[in-house]
């Protein structure tokens, strides 16, 4: 059962070839069998899942099901789930049981999807390796000594090891696309504002977006159809109507123009990855595409811009974790200042502290103009570069990450080395553009991801291009032998 995609299982469920309870039991058993070696889950919601599956079976029998009814999924532990622990991979929320569901959680629940659990992640989504979690590092199903990427590494590993049919994630600087690339699966970040952020614990409000980790673009379209759309509880949600994603995949191929950001093919890009990307571009040429180089003049500044903007916004967003109303509270404290300082000092890990302090610094008196304001201006320049490119090409295609998966512990001592993992992904967050990563080959036996970036609100066309690539290739069907 686990070797079938979400789309195929949706057909199986609709045709009653398998029941939702059978499917849920099968995947729960796989989690029990495999998660000890991967640490992809913080919480497994076994009883709730079986109850949801039973309800799904009733809906399927009554004929009022949706494509997602009965499909086992997992949610990144950054999404509030009512009555279920929501930790953000942090000690400071280790004891937090959310009183409400995030919008995307309730939409997927209403569609009948079955939640098997909450996945592990870099603490507060700050990381590119899923190593900073209070609950320990997540391991890559392709090689347990390697990271699955981050911060949505638990969701990526769960999908890559076929422990769930699909999972939700969040992407602020690449946290869906990068782990998808390192774990050999499909990761999709929509246009900023396309999906509601209500109930998604905030990291950097002008960059955060919810998205999907799945095996295929077809599966991503099915999940995104349910997740996307206006929500009055998110003040940055777009009111633009949501098109039909899945039917867009079926339309005939039309010749497209692809821009390849030449800046990305630099010394930092692993040669095996570069080759896989070039081979992938050949597939598009065969399908019918014109390929041209584009030059994104300021994109090399993405990483410094991000570490100003995201840290600044994080320092503000994480000020709510103060030990007063929920979460960890320090003991034996004498005064309010000590309550705050020790609660937060004890509750946050090292990377989170670094980002809060960086953010505090760039927003502080005397530095705001030089750093935050300057970064928001450079952000505009980067965004303008993308807009200029999209006046000339339909999509930008290139690498997702500079290298395949790296060793657990390898980059933990050098934050800048860790930050550079996101060098190709951050631009899409800064400009609010939709972007996907799909598997396109291997380098040294490890998965390589192909990144596709579209103009604002081009999700149907973007998913279609990825889908056609997956009809022409079989990289997305590969699975590590142990999880086949």
């Amino acid at each position: 059962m686990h070797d079938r995609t979400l789309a195929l299982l949706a057909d199986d469920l609709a045709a009653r070839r398998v029941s939702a309870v059978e499917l849920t039991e099968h995947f729960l058993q796989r989690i029990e069998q495999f998660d000890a070696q991967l640490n992809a889950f913080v919480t497994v919601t076994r009883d709730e899942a079986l109850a949801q599956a039973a309800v799904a079976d009733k809906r399927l029998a009554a004929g009022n099901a949706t494509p997602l009814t009965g499909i086992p999924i997992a949610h990144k532990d950054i999404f509030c789930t009512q009555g279920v622990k929501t930790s953000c991979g942090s000690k400071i929320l280790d004891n937090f049981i959310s009183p409400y569901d995030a919008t995307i959680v309730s939409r997927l629940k209403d569609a009948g999807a079955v939640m098997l659990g909450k996945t592990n992640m870099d603490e507060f989504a700050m990381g590119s390796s899923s190593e900073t979690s209070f609950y320990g590092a997540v391991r890559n199903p392709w090689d347990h000594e390697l990271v699955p990427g981050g911060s949505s590494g638990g969701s990526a590993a769960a999908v890559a090891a076929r422990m769930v049919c699909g999972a939700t994630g969040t992407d602020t600087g690449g946290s869906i696309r990068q782990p998808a690339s390192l774990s050999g699966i499909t990761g999709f970040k929509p246009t900023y504002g396309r999906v509601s952020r209500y109930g998604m614990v905030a990291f950097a409000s002008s960059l955060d977006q919810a998205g999907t980790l799945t095996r295929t673009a077809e599966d991503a379209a099915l999940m995104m159809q349910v997740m996307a759309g206006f929500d009055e509880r998110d003040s940055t949600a777009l009111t633009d109507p949501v098109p039909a994603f899945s039917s867009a995949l079926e339309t005939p191929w039309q010749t497209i123009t692809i821009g390849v950001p030449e800046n990305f093919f630099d010394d930092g890009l692993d040669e095996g990855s570069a080759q896989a990307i070039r081979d992938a571009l050949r597939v598009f040429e065969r399908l019918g595409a014109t390929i041209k180089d584009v030059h994104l003049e300021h994109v090399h500044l993405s990483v410094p811009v991000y570490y100003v903007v995201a840290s600044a916004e994080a320092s503000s967003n994480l000020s709510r974790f103060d030990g007063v109303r929920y979460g960890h509270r320090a003991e034996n404290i004498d005064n309010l200042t000590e309550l705050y300082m020790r609660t937060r000092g004890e509750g946050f890990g090292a990377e989170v502290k670094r980002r809060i302090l960086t953010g505090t610094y760039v927003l502080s008196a005397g530095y705001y103009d030089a750093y935050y304001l300057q970064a928001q201006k450079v952000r505009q320049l980067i965004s303008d570069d993308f807009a200029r490119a999209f006046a000339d090409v339909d999509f930008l295609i290139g690498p997702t990450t500079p290298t395949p998966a790296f060793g657990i512990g390898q980059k933990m001592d050098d934050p800048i080395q860790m930050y550079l993992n996101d060098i190709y992904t951050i631009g899409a967050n800064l400009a609010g553009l939709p972007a996907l990563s799909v598997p396109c080959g291997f380098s040294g036996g490890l998965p390589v991801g192909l990144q596709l970036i579209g103009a604002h609100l081009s999700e149907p066309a973007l998913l279609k291009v990825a889908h056609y690539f997956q009809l022409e290739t079989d990289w997305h069907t590969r699975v590590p032998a142990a999880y086949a």
Partner: protein
Amino acid sequence: MSLNREDIEKLCFLARLEVTIDEMPDVESKLSDIVKLIDQLQAVDTASVTPMAHPLDREQRLREDRVTESDEREQIQLNAPLVERALYLVPKVIE
């Protein structure tokens, strides 16, 4: 620009975030690396550029000033570390 211990202690107080004596050397060195990274932005000419407020250049939506939320205090306060008569308890602030 690099940050010394005193700078970091000031930031810790602003952020109400304790960094212990043991943690301090590592924080000092890593923050300095980060500041070096972000200092790259100083060289960019942005004289005629408007800072980006929203990636899609949309305006903030407004709504009618009506109460629409319901009282879920009891459920929300299940997560409270210390609560009495619906009030969150903290160490005394005013002498």
